[in-house]
């Protein structure tokens, strides 16, 4: 027995917008949690050890948040002035932070009072970090110097006076205990080696450097300053590899995704961009409400944390697998629990005969109507759905040759609903081939009664207006088509065959 075939809904791709693996991945985050901090959030740093708390430096405080907490689990408030750059040590036990009052403070994560105070800088300290062997601290300051300190006896080991402007960013190498990189407002990046007590590589960024990032392999270094993000090869002595200009205001923060395949940059223009690190193309873009100052990704990209100038900390958590699935299968009704449990403990035996139960087909409302040949009702119920569905049903009715009957015999309200749908979707080139004949039919059917209902008349006038606009527009497009033809023709002589093939491909696909 031939069964009823449900109406096929074609899927129309939208031109120009590609759904890539990246967009799927980066869109898979929940709505952000927003926390108001006391001032602009200048730095966010994740603890390297589980449970991966993170330190948020804002105004005169450092708050420690847990991975899913919405309130700080701990806060360090013993700063006399604005704090900067709160960073964890690699074992997650100690936290170091600079301050506007030039004193560097070292905290125990469980304590409250500073364990050590490092005094020596003469101006605000914006950069602090631990070296890889964990007993030294590296700092960079607005007094143009960067220094190394010994933690146990709180003494200064060395001072490097090579920069000629404020030092605002820097990182230490995670592999070598003696290497660290600083970025300064004098437009340069310098790689220092503590063994030779001077810089070994100098790279000119061209703009005041706002942020520096080392690749996990430490062969490459990424710097951000002005509107540019630049990638340098350290193994080739600081050769510039890539220069990216995808922001329209200063780039303030950089971050790598956990697998090292994606680079994220945050900027004052309120965007966060995601780059593919193999070809350095922008693969995704996040928009925020205010200028972004700091950015951090949790391990395994579990959450994206962004601090803004207005003091708002925005936290986006990744959707759990169940959640992202639920969205797609929300409508489906689950069988009851009893059905679920029944026969749960049954062990299949070898000579069991398996009876395949026919899968019951679920028909949508319009298909049910179509099956019963209630064509008007089918059209009515399809009108409530997405335009793709409605158009598919109209097409199906047209194929059956009953579209005229479905359209006829409508009262004022039903007709105006239909006309409303047509005016709304007429200009969509995907639907026009179906809707234009339908509109023609409607006019033929209702020609005699036009002018009796002001509602319908108004909609017809609106449709006419729209058609006029569309025709004007298409005429312009025809102009453009002519121009394009000329352009193509002028480039034909060189690669005639290739071009023609391309043309065919274009028109076909």
């Amino acid at each position: 027995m031939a069964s009823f075939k449900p109406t096929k809904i074609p899927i129309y791709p939208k031109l120009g917008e590609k759904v890539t693996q990246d967009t799927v991945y980066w869109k898979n985050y929940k709505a952000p949690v927003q926390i108001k901090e006391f001032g602009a959030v200048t730095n966010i740093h994740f603890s390297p050890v589980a449970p991966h708390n993170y330190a948020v430096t804002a105004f005169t405080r450092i708050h420690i948040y847990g991975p899913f907490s919405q309130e700080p689990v701990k806060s360090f408030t013993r700063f006399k002035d604005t704090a900067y750059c709160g960073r964890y040590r690699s074992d997650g036990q100690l936290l170091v932070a600079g301050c506007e009052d030039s004193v560097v403070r070292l905290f125990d994560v469980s304590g409250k009072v500073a364990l050590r105070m490092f005094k020596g800088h003469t101006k605000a300290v914006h950069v602090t970090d631990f070296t890889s062997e964990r007993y030294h601290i590296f700092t960079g300051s607005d007094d143009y110097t960067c220094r190394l300190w010994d933690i146990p006896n709180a003494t200064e080991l060395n001072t490097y006076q090579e920069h000629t402007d404020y030092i605002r960013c820097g990182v230490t190498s995670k592999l070598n205990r003696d290497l660290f990189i600083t970025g300064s407002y004098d437009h340069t990046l310098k790689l220092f080696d503590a063994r030779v007590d001077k810089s070994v590589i100098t790279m000119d960024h061209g703009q005041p450097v706002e942020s520096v990032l080392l690749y996990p392999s430490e062969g490459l270094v990424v710097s951000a300053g002005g509107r540019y993000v630049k990638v340098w090869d350290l193994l080739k002595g600081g050769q510039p590899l890539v220069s990216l200009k995808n922001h329209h205001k200063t780039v303030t923060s950089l971050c790598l995704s956990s697998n090292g395949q994606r680079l994220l940059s945050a900027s004052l223009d309120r965007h966060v961009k995601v780059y593919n690190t193999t070809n350095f193309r922008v693969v995704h873009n996040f928009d925020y409400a205010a200028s972004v100052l700091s950015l951090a990704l949790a391990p395994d990209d579990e959450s994206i944390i962004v601090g803004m100038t207005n003091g708002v900390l925005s936290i986006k958590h990744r959707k759990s697998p169940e959640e992202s699935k639920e969205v797609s299968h929300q409508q489906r009704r689950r069988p009851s629990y009893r059905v679920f449990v029944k026969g749960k403990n049954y062990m299949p035996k070898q000579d069991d005969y398996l009876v395949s139960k026919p899968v019951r087909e679920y028909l949508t409302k319009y298909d049910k109507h179509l099956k019963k040949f209630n064509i008007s009702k089918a059209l009515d119920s399809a009108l409530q759905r997405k335009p793709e569905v409605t158009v598919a049903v109209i097409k199906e009715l047209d194929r059956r040759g009953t579209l005229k009957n479905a359209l006829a015999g409508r009262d004022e309200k039903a007709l105006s609903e239909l006309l409303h749908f047509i005016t709304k979707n007429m200009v969509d080139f995907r639907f026009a081939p179906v809707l234009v004949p339908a509109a023609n039919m409607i006019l033929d059917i209702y020609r005699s009664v036009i002018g009796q209902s002001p509602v319908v008349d108004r909609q017809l006038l609106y449709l006419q207006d729209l058609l006029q606009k569309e025709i004007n527009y298409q005429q312009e497009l025809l102009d453009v088509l002519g121009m394009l033809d000329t352009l193509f023709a002028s480039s034909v002589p060189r690669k005639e065959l290739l071009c023609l093939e391309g043309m065919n491909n274009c028109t076909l696909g």
Partner: protein
Amino acid sequence: MATDGSRASLQLPCVFSPKSRQYLALCAQDGRLRIWNTDSKTLHQEYVPSAHLSATCTCIAWGPCRTVKEGPQRKKRKSEAGQVEEKADLLAMGTAAGTVLIYSTAKGALHCTLEGGHSGGVNCVQWHPEDSLLYSGSDDTHIVEWDLQTGKKRSNWKADRAAVTSLCVSPDGKLLLSAGRTIKMWDLDTKEVYRKFTGHSTAVTTLCFATTRPPDSNGLYFLSGAEHDRLLSVWQVREDGRDKNSVVSFTLTDEPQHVDLVPSNSKEEAVRLAVVCKDGQLHLFEHFLNGPCKKPLSPSCTVQMSDTKDSPAPIPLLAAALGADTRSALLAYGNHLQPVMERAEINTAERHVCLTRDIHTSLSLSMETAVSKVKTPVVNAKSKVLVPGLPGHQAPIKGTSQGSEKRKKDTDTKEMSIEERLGEIDLSTVSTEKGALKGKASLQTDNFAVLLVQGLESKDASILNKVLQTRKDMVINKTVARLPLPVVLPFVEELTKRLQGHPCTALLIVRWLKAVLVHHTSYLASLPDLVTQLGVLYHMIETRVKMFHKLTKLNGKLHLLMTQVATSDSSTTVTDVDHTAKLVYEEESSDEDEASGDEGLQDADSDNWEEEETMEEDEKKQSDNDEEEDPDSRTESKANGEEDMEHENESEEE
């Protein structure tokens, strides 16, 4: 200084009258002072200072309650003291010009103007609780003590290195707190610093005594709040002078805007505190002040207000005053021009309370009453001039006005966003549309090109929208001409995306696309992979244009139908015209009549009879033919009409 200016412009003064809370004095954005009656919820008085635009009101303070009548009746009143109600009368307003206005609510007019004390804007005014003295603190770092009996300044001293932003007189009238960079406590008899308190890094906006001074003077506490600070600090004045740090702090959600406090008279009584923050939330605290407390205290109850729409929006609270018992509070909310007042019972057992109010209905109600009951005071006509010199409220002193202008400029340059700048560019194009200033216009398109490049680089939708919505051909052409070559292809890609939309918006985009094709022809033609680059665009246009014929036909059909409907509507009134049109047939018959007349004439010569008959028959045939042809000709005319319409349409389109 700049921050002070912005603070004054942001925080509008809003004060309840003391004790009975009968009035709410509010100085709104328009510079007018409005006094609302909190019992009847109506506008009690409105007063427009003569210089309300140049010298805006920065602070308000209600004078201590006093009885209105004066002089000889005093004895009588003493006997009736139980009955006579004390009324709040005088209101001191500090202005940005450095003067202090004293307004009397009993008279409904300006009482006097205090001038000549300050060279900078007044930040704060405070009344002495008993003597008729007034203290004002100013941007010029001085505090002035005014004597209201004489209307002159009594003394004047430098209080701080920075502007004096806040003042508070102790309840017993012996001490004065002032806040500039540091908080200082002055002995009012000697005008000497009694104590200093440091701790706030920003300007202190709120000062308030929390206890009356008990016999053992370790129990004197006061409260301070600063701008951009989400903590209210409580300080203890200790006999031994060990009062370096604040003893208690209260956490808020934003900086405090209005603070109301019921002080405790003994150690056993809790201090009750209601703080309205800048974000429009009210926080209620209750705390026993007995020594330091390490942790910041969070509110015992937080009150928010929202409206009753489908998607509720918060209504900002403006001020709140605590009632006699713990549960009731007097709230003022809404906007400054039309505040809504309400005595609300707040369930303090809940940590968080949200009150929903239909602000629109209540607004309109108060509007009606406001119109009917406004008492219009005589503005400035008979104001008492007590200071020698020029009468009335004079223009501000030059130095300060320049200062304030500078401040404004500073904030302007800081806050100008790209959108605003673009808006200004739009204005400038309107003004230069006549083509008189070509140089300017070219500069402006240059900006557009830069913006467009930036927008394309960062794919910022708002910038692109702004640029692509331009309607002026000249701007489009120049912008495209200035477009650097590397961004041409990304631009075409962006245009392709936008071409798929509604014809209204897409029509604008086509003009950009045309401009690109015209201006960058050679560049595009030189591209080796041109076809693959523009293939998407070409394909998209082709698919869209496919329906052109059918759409045009449909349009023609619709046009015909709609015009017919229009004419049929009008034709019901002019049916006579149709009748005249039918006369054509009668003319033909008249021809026949003439012919019959001829017949009559020709009757005499009967030779041509047969010919005549045949003639008649021919004519009949002809007329039959005419009748047969008629419907055809009608349809033809219809068809012609349709064609004409189409021609017309096309001509319109062109």
